[in-house]
C-alpha cells in the first residue's frame, strides 16, 4: 500500500520527484518546488490516493545547505489509511526565493498552517488569501524558527519596568535565584557518589 503512493508519484511526475525513501511504512518524497501545487492536487484528486486530510506543514531551517529551508508537509488519507510526507527545499542563504504555491485551494485546512509556516520560518505562499502572522504579533520582526534568529532576542510589546520604577535592578527583581523552587536544576545535578 505504502509503496504504491511513491510509485504513482514517480510514474506521474518523473523527474520532479527528486528523492524518495521509505522506512518502517513511513514514506517521504522530496519534490521540485515548482511542481508543489500540481503534486498536491494530484495527491488529493487521484481516486487511488485520495489524501483528504492535511496533517501538518512546517519549515525546517538547515543554514549549511542550499537551498536552505525545507518545507515539510504531512498528509493522511482517511479512506485509504495511508500517509505521505512531502518535502520541498526553497530559499538561498538570504532566504530570497523562499516561495511556494499556496495549496489552500486544494485543502482549505492548509490556510492556517501556511500562515504558521510564514510566521515561524518566513516561507511565502503565492496565492494565499490572507498571509498574515498567526502566532506572533504583527509588530514582531523576523522569523523566530530560523537558525539566524538570536536565541536570546525578545521583542516586548510593553516596555519593561525600569530599575527606577521597581526600586531594584530589574534583573534582580525576583527575590530568589534562577534555580530556587524549580523541580529541576539548571546546574548539572550533583550525583550521589557511587558506592
Amino acid at each position, binding site marked *: 500500500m505504502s509503496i504504491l503512493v511513491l510509485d504513482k508519484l514517480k510514474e506521474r511526475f518523473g523527474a520532479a520527484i527528486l528523492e524518495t525513501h521509505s522506512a518502517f511504512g513511513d514514506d517521504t518524497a522530496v519534490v521540485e518546488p515548482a511542481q508543489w501545487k500540481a503534486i498536491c492536487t494530484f495527491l488529493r484528486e487521484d481516486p487511488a490516493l485520495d489524501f483528504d486530510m492535511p496533517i501538518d506543514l512546517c519549515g525546517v531551517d538547515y543554514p549549511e545547505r542550499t537551498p536552505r529551508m525545507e518545507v515539510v508537509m504531512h498528509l493522511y488519507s482517511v479512506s485509504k489509511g495511508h500517509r505521505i510526507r512531502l518535502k520541498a527545499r526553497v530559499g538561498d542563504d538570504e532566504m530570497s526565493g523562499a516561495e511556494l504555491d499556496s495549496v489552500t485551494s486544494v485543502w482549505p485546512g492548509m490556510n492556517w498552517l501556511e500562515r504558521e509556516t510564514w510566521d515561524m520560518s518566513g516561507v511565502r505562499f503565492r496565492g494565499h488569501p490572507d498571509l498574515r502572522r498567526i502566532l*506572533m*504579533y504583527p509588530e514582531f520582526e523576523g522569523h*523566530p524558527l530560523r537558525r539566524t*534568529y538570536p*536565541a*536570546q*532576542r*525578545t*521583542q*516586548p*510589546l*510593553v516596555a*519593561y*519596568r525600569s530599575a527606577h520604577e*521597581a526600586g531594584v535592578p*530589574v534583573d534582580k*527583581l*525576583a*527575590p*530568589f535565584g*534562577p*534555580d*530556587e*523552587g*524549580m*523541580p*529541576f*536544576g539548571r546546574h548539572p*545535578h*550533583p*550525583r*550521589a557518589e557511587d*558506592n
Partner: protein
Amino acid sequence: MGDVTSLALDGSEQGFATTRVDALLGWARKYSLFAYPFVTACCGMEFMALTSPRFDLARFGAEAPRFSPRQSDLLWVVGTISQRQAPVLKRVYEQMMEPKWVLAFGTCASSGGFYDNYTTVAGIDKLIPTDVYIPGCPPRPEAVLDGLMLLQDKITRNDRRPGAVKPRFDPVQEADRLVRLRRSASDPRDLVPALKEQEARARALASGGDR
C-alpha cells in the same frame, strides 16, 4: 507602619479597645481579598484544586472571584505570560483599584521558567509590581496557601516588599537524600514498614487457608 502586635487590643480588659487605623484596615483587608484569576496555562488545574472544597480557600476569605478587575484587589497570575499577552495583563492590573496585590502563581509567572526564548515574559515582575512569588511547576496547593498566608501577613504589616514561598526542602538535595536512603538499606522493604506488614498478613492468610 503597624506591626502585628499592635493589633492586640490594648486595654480591652477595661471594656474598651484601642488600635491604629492602618492596622485595623490591614486586618480587615486581609480577610476580604477579592480575587481576579488571570489563568493562562496548566497551573490553572492546580488553581482549580486550590479553590475546591478540599483545600478550601474560603478559610482565608479569598474565595470569591470577581471577573472584573475593577471589583477585585488581588490579581492571581496563574501560568505563562507570553509577550503577546503582556499588554492585556498590564491593562488588567491598571484597571484594579487601590489597594491591590499581585500573586505570581508558579514558576512561569515568577520567572518565565524554562521558557527562555522569544515568546515569553521572564516573570510578571518585568511588567507589574509583584507581592508574593509562589515557585513550583505547578506549586502544590499547600505552597499556594503558604503564599496566601504570607500575603495576608504582609497586608497586616503594610509591607510591600516582594516575598517568595520557600520550598520546604531543596529539590536537588531531596533527590540525593532519596538515593542515599535507598543505598543505605540492605532490603528496600525496610524503608516501607507497611510492605512487611502486608506480606506478613498475606502469609498468615495463606497458611490459614491451608488448614
